[in-house]
């Protein structure tokens, strides 16, 4: 019970700490240390309390439900191996927290730093102890994210930004691969529980998906632990503050990858593929990392490549996969963390105190910083694998495995030599580090005067170096139990016997070590002078740089390829898009209809009526004429469109749809006026469009003609196919039977509109209102094209003689009084008749409205009629004249109409009936007789109001543009005049 609480605490504490840390004030450096250190210490204490329960291969676990329905549950599971890793996270975390207090400058925002650091620790802990492989991926990705944030801590620097981005992209990609691997693994095993997966190695390895799982899994592991060729993010990540490098990029996060390799080696390992890929990659990384490290002039760069190299070593061990190799791997994870963290911290101290990390500038620091120098030299020696230090021990184990373990491949045979070669390089770079930084004459041109750092900045290093020594001398006593429990956790009953003794005799590994030591020293002595001047990598690697490849790939991916693909498979041209829509739909419909028997033509000339055919001869002529003229003769096209619309309306009338005919005709009128209003702002096309007769243009037109004809034929044959077969049972029958009985009106169409399907009508008038508002809003800021601002040519041509002065005065007066001006005289007599039509049209509107429920007509038709009546008055005179006489607030009409319609519909709610339940009754009024009094009529009144408001608003909004542009002209003229005066 206690243990279960403790493991929960392990995860929760860092996250809580992170939240607390970010809320602290910017300057609370000490507070942050207390908080962070406290969290880490608490973690260590909890670990200590847990050790007994995980030591002999036992497991403590606890499950918290998250999304069990997709197999996501937060199973927390601590075993010896996880415990060992947690020790690193909390232990080194504790030291880093203290170290960072002195490392960061007062200008750095510490809450963000400690917040991210603790959150990272939390993610790392959760990853390590998650007993669900999916949740493991969750936190795996979170470590990438927090690592990203920490690398980008100093985001003012371009290097930090690049480093952070590269790290996130590479490790994030790996994480996605890992996710895929885990999903596949879970599928194969039938469970996402780590315990189940670990127990199902045989099933997994035998499954046909094994290669995929392995590949994706390794992609995840390799990217995280910076294996070649994914190693390049790690050196770039050195732009992070050094405590971050010490913590994440040597001790914890990069170890997640090798942790995973070791952890899953019982499941996925033991196959030739595993050996070749893992051991091969590991060895390549080991050697290349060491080689490049030798070339780096930057202290942290050297340490980064050294880290890569050591991670390669651990990977190689995991690849070998024998019991001994696993022991060595686990042991080296620990050892490397200890000496590398101390080295990073030392490098940070050097950087902090001298102002540079460039080894070519540094020299003789042992004089000014003797204690730090001593510490760093010991740690570096451990890095090189010098005997009596911790690094030596695990390296010897590796050598032993390389030499003693065999599987008969050439790689196996080459292993001892390759291992020795890598060791030679690592001795050389360690020497370079020691000699060039601490020995030689004191440097003279350093940015800062070097001296020992604050004591507490050095304490963490001291502690770590002490561990290096203690483990080096008394390995069994220091670390034996921990290591043993880790090994047991991974290998279980297969755990081998091993000895942690210092002296195993003068055996092959020792010989290899000594050879490496000697040859490494020689290599350093030969190479040292050249390295001072050389580039930061061997020439062949420079050309084959993974970083360059990555950068190029990113550039191609995010600029060239993507842009090219996007343009190739996308378009910004409307025509292409419209064509695609039409083509796709036509092709799809054709595909479904290809074997439709109903589409076969039959009875073509049944009911043929010559008059109807003649009428449509005119209609089709108009339609085609409009299509032909629309480009150069817009007005003609408009007139012809009217003709086609008229024939359409006549067709409605012909086939028993008087309501449709009425509506279509009136809408036709309004549309025509609208389009005419718009034509004012689309100047007459006097010139031919460039390239209009070119071959391409003609080809496009012809191609579209084919497409259009196909569509026409398709729709026509569909229409014919349906029309020539009698309908089955339709809902229309019910409407016809019940229009009067239930709906209380004889005009079934109108009853449908205002009662049976009034909801449609409500939506429809809303559309009308919306569109009107939009037109109005858009036109409020309408800016005409320059050539449209001018007065239309019809008005600039004056057929009347120029005005005399007196006449001009009268004209001005007339304008001021909003009387018709002299130009309006052209319309004088017609406009009288148009005014006569106003009362008539009002009567028409009332007529259409009142008849609606029983006969053709209705609220919509009445509304449009009323709007046309108003429109006619605008036509007859001009905007100012009308608006000084009639005040219309169309927006309010729309709003009120909608509310009225809704209100009518909602009335039924009060009586417990659903929305829009109508109540119809014929009321007998004295003198008048029976009058239909349906609530539907009230609803229709709302429709009427909206239609009037919307139609008028649209028309007026466009019409007002003439007024505005007149104002604009006046302003321009005034400006021109005032400029002339000047």
């Amino acid at each position: 019970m206690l243990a279960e609480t403790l493991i929960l605490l392990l995860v929760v504490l860092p996250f809580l700490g992170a939240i607390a840390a970010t809320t602290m004030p910017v300057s609370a450096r000490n507070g942050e240390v207390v908080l962070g250190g406290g969290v880490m210490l608490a973690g260590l204490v909890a670990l200590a309390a847990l050790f007994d329960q995980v030591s002999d291969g036992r497991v403590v676990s606890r499950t918290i439900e998250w999304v069990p329905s997709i197999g996501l549950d937060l199973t927390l599971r601590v075993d010896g191996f996880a415990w060992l890793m947690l020790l690193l996270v909390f232990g080194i975390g504790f030291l880093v927290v203290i170290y960072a207090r002195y490392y960061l400058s007062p200008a750095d925002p510490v809450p963000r730093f400690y917040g991210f650091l603790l959150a990272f620790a939390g993610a790392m802990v959760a990853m390590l102890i998650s007993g669900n492989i999916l949740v493991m991926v969750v936190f795996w990705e979170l470590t990438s994210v927090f690592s990203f944030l920490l690398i980008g801590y100093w985001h003012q620097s371009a290097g930090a930004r690049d480093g952070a981005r590269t790290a996130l992209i590479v490790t994030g990609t790996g994480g996605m691969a890992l996710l895929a691997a885990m999903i596949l693994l879970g599928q194969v095993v039938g469970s996402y529980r780590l315990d189940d997966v670990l127990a199902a190695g045989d099933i997994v390895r035998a499954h046909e998906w094994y290669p995929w799982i392995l590949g994706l899994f390794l992609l995840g592991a390799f990217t995280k632990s910076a294996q070649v060729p994914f190693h390049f993010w790690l050196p770039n990540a050195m732009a992070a503050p050094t405590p971050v490098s010490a913590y994440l990029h040597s001790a914890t996060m990069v170890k997640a990858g090798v942790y995973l390799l070791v952890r899953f080696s019982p499941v996925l390992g033991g196959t030739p593929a595993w050996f070749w890929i893992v051991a091969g990659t590991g060895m390549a990384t080991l050697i290349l990392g060491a080689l490049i490290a030798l070339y780096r002039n930057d202290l942290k760069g050297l340490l980064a490549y050294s880290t890569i190299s050591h991670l390669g070593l651990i990977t190689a061990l995991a690849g070998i996969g024998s019991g001994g190799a696993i022991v060595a791997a686990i042991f080296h994870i620990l050892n490397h963390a200890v000496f590398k963290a101390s080295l990073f911290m030392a490098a940070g101290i050097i950087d902090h105190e001298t102002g540079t990390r460039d080894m070519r500038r540094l020299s003789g620091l042992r004089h000014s910083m003797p204690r730090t120098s001593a510490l760093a030299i010991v740690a570096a020696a451990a890095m090189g694998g010098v005997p009596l230090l911790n690094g030596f021990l695990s390296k010897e184990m590796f050598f032993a495995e390389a030499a003693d373990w065999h599987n008969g491949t050439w790689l196996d045979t080459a292993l001892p030599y390759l291992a020795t070669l890598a060791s030679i390089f690592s001795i050389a770079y360690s020497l370079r580090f020691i000699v060039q930084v601490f020995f030689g004459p004191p440097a003279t041109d350093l940015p800062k005067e070097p001296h020992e750092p604050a004591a507490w900045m050095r304490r963490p290093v001291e502690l770590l170096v002490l561990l290096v020594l203690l483990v080096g001398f008394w390995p069994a006593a220091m670390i034996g139990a921990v290591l043993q429990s880790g090994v047991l956790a991974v290998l279980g009953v297969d755990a081998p016997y091993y000895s942690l003794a210092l002296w195993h005799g003068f055996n092959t590994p020792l010989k290899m070590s000594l050879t490496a030591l000697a040859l490494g020293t020689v290599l350093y002595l030969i190479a040292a002078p050249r390295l001072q001047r050389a580039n930061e990598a061997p020439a062949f690697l420079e050309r084959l740089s993974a970083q360059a490849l990555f950068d190029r790939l990113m550039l191609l991916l995010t600029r060239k390829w993507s842009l090219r693909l996007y343009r190739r498979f996308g378009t910004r041209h409307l025509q292409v898009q419209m064509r695609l829509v039409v083509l796709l739909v036509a092709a799809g419909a054709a595909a479904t209809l290809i074997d439709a028997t109903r589409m076969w033509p039959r009875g073509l000339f049944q009911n043929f009526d010559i008059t109807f055919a003649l009428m449509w001869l005119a209609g089709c002529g108009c339609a085609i004429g409009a299509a032909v003229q629309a480009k150069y003769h817009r007005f003609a096209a408009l007139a012809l469109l009217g003709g086609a619309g008229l024939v359409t309306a006549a067709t409605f009338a012909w086939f028993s749809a008087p309501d449709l005919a009425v509506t279509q005709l009136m809408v036709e009128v309004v549309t025509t006026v609208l389009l005419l209003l718009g034509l004012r702002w689309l100047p007459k096309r006097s010139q031919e469009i460039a390239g209009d007769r070119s071959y391409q243009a003609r080809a496009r037109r012809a191609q579209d003609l084919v497409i259009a004809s196909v569509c026409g034929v398709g729709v026509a044959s569909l229409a014919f196919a349906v029309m020539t077969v009698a309908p089955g049972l339709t809902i229309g029958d019910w409407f016809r039977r019940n229009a009067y009985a239930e709906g209380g009106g004889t005009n079934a169409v109108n009853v449908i509109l205002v009662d049976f399907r009034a909801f449609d009508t409500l939506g429809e008038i809303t559309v009308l209102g919306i569109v009107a508002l939009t037109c109005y809003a858009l036109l409020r800021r309408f800016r005409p094209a320059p050539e449209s601002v001018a007065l239309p040519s019809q008005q600039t041509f004056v057929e009347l003689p120029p005005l005399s002065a007196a006449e001009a005065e009268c004209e001005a007066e007339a304008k001021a009084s909003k009387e018709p001006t002299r130009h309006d005289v052209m319309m004088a007599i017609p406009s009288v008749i148009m005014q006569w039509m106003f009362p008539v049209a009002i009567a028409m509107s009332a007529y259409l409205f009142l008849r609606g429920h029983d006969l053709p007509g209705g609220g919509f038709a009445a509304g449009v009629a009323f709007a046309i009546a108003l429109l006619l008055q605008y036509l007859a005179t001009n905007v100012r004249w009308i608006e000084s006489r009639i005040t219309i607030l169309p927006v309010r009409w729309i709003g009120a109409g909608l509310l009225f319609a809704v209100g009518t519909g909602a009335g039924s709610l009060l009586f417990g009936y659903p929305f829009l339940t109508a109540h119809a009754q014929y009321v007998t009024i004295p003198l008048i007789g029976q009058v239909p009094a349906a609530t539907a009529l009230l609803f229709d009144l709302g429709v009427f109001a909206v239609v009037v408001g919307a139609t008028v608003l649209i028309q007026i909004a466009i019409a007002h543009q003439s007024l505005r542009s007149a104002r604009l002209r006046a302003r321009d003229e005034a400006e021109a005049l005032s400029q002339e005066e000047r």
Partner: protein
Amino acid sequence: MTPALILAWVLLLSQVCLVSALVLASMRAIRGPRAQDRVTGLDTMYVCAMLLMVVTGMRQGTHFLFEAALVIGTLGFVATTAMAKFLLRGEVIE
């Protein structure tokens, strides 16, 4: 031949006449040559269509088409007048 039959034939012929008139008017609308010709053509089309509706109603024995005719007769001229005004003034509403 009964008067009813005669009337039936006359109505049919009348439809043919009116539709022919419609076609002729549409030819004027299509051919132009000038914009005012097209508008005249369209205006005539309106009249023909209206009369066609009346005659069709007579043939079908229904008075329900009358509203459509009424709308053309009362409000149809607004469209053509607007077009004419456009030709006259270059804008419909000043």
